[in-house]
């Protein structure tokens, strides 16, 4: 199938396409939507207070530049703002981190309006020895559709750390494809999803180890309530010759509603020798004995549930190295649990 293009309905995948099995875009989108009018992007978004430069798109249209080159130590707020009703838009951005750069990429998907369709494409190029930390806050109306596709290419010895925090939409998909050269490059790719009502989030990723001695660590955790649906499709491929790869993947979800659903498809595809790869996947409910213990000490059941849920998800948040950003994420997520 050719790449998703909002102007061409024949490119909209349905569940018949394996990679979209759990996120049937065509179910919600049959025809190409009318193109959204550009909107002005105001303020600084949810990452305000952490400073840095800004790259912003209002309904797909860039305010100023659509690309950023990072060198030295820098912070960039990358904002995808949607403010539309039943129309669609596509944003495309490119980010380069030069050799030795340390870039903190603070991304936000800020949705207002209703029933819009947003398609975001992002290319991130991390030069040898450079480091990029990409933190993503996604908040959209419950009837919005959004697909974000990031292609990340790493040089030797590069480091890339990503944490996605998603709260779902009618159909929300965040794809990350990483070309991993091995050779002391390191990837950390984490995610949290917290979904209620009929919201849907799909975290799909591929880390493709093409050279020896690369490391990848992936941890995703989610909580679904009501009739929400969480999808985790994580794949780590270790190509021929990528010996000495160390790759770990974990996905753990709590289902807190009888009609809520989690679909998990963790995959390891290994063609090399002498690799250390592991994946763990669990789906369950809150521990009843812990809930009773907490109530016995005086916490009402709702509060006990909230505290356990928060503790469950914060394991991921606490892996964010940047203290200021970690605090923003903690507050942002707490307000949405």
């Amino acid at each position, binding site marked *: 199938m050719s790449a998703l293009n909002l102007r061409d309905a024949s490119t909209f995948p349905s569940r018949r396409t394996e990679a979209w099995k759990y996120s049937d875009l065509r179910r919600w989108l049959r025809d190409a939507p009318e193109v959204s009018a550009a909107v002005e992007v105001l303020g600084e978004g949810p990452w305000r207070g952490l400073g840095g430069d800004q790259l912003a798109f209002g309904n797909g249209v860039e305010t100023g530049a659509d690309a950023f080159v990072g060198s030295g130590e820098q912070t960039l707020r990358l904002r995808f703002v949607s403010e539309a009703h039943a129309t669609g838009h596509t944003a495309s951005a490119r980010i380069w981190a030069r050799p030795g750069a340390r870039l903190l990429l603070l991304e936000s998907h800020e949705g207002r309006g209703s029933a819009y369709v947003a398609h975001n494409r992002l290319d991130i190029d991390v030069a040898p020895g450079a480091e990029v930390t990409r933190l993503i806050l996604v908040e959209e109306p419950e009837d919005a559709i959004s697909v974000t596709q990031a292609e990340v290419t790493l040089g030797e010895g590069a480091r890339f750390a990503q944490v996605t925090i998603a709260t779902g939409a009618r159909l929300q998909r965040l794809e990350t494809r990483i070309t991993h050269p091995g050779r002391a490059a390191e990837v950390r790719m984490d995610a949290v999803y917290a979904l209620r009502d009929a919201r849907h989030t799909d975290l799909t990723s591929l880390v493709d180890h093409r050279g020896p001695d690369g490391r990848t660590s992936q941890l995703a955790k989610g909580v679904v309530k009501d009739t929400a649906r969480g999808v985790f499709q994580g794949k780590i491929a270790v190509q021929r010759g990528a010996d000495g790869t160390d790759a770990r993947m974990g996905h753990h979800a709590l289902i807190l509603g009888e009609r809520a659903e989690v679909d998990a498809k963790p995959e390891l595809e290994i063609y090399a020798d002498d690799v250390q790869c592991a994946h763990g996947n669990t789906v369950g409910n809150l521990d009843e004995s812990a809930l009773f213990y907490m109530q016995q000490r005086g916490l009402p059941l709702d509060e006990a549930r909230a505290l356990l849920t928060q*503790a469950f998800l*914060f394991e991921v948040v606490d892996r964010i190295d940047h203290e200021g950003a970690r605090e923003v994420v903690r507050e942002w997520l707490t307000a949405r649990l």
Partner: protein
Amino acid sequence: MLSISNLHVSVGDKPILNGLSLAVPAGEVHAVMGPNGAGKSTLGYALSGRPGYEATEGGVHWRGQDLLTLEPADRAAAGVFLSFQYPIEIPGVPALTFVRTALNAQRRARGEEEVSAPAFLKLVREASKALRMDFDMLKRPLNVGFSGGEKKRMEILQMALLEPSLLILDETDSGLDIDALRIVADGVNALRSPERAMVVITHYQRLLDYIRPDRVHVLAAGRIVASGGPELALELEAEGYDKYLPPLTPERAA
């Protein structure tokens, strides 16, 4: 006064307590002793309201309140504290955060003002010193990676901070060496007061050398079958529980 009358409790379809009656006046410490499987832990869970432990008959009153109608958290706010035989690990929630959240939830439920963070820290420092606990341990997730003895001290620390009026200790001595037992018992004894009632559930007499009971009751097959003074515990230690067990049926004898 804790008043338990004709209490029947089932777990699933299985009756565990069969008409248990017990009265513990405020200011007294009563030991409940019994063989394995007699229903000792079930008594603690039934008093504290654990889901799945259903009271099918009888009543439980504490300070005139009908406990069986209250949710577990409301029982806690009414003064009920169960020290668990096996305290539960709560990953991701630091012990300090947990206890302060619990204390303030109870205070809110009683219409009292919440305790500020600095005032709470002061209370914790004093209480943890008395139990010879490392303060830094309290910054770790509650009970996660704690030794058996540390978990039991953590229970007593919570008891000291939450200041319950009805204390139920379920096998508090299990897993404790002699030194830890003495520290834990001192912590419990420090909480004895004319307003508080304590129920000490134990299999062995040992704990009662450190926490002296006013009365001793024998729990067998879901009922209190004998009561007496502290000397009853010594008698049980010497003679065992055999004479309180139901007669052997041919099936059990085989």
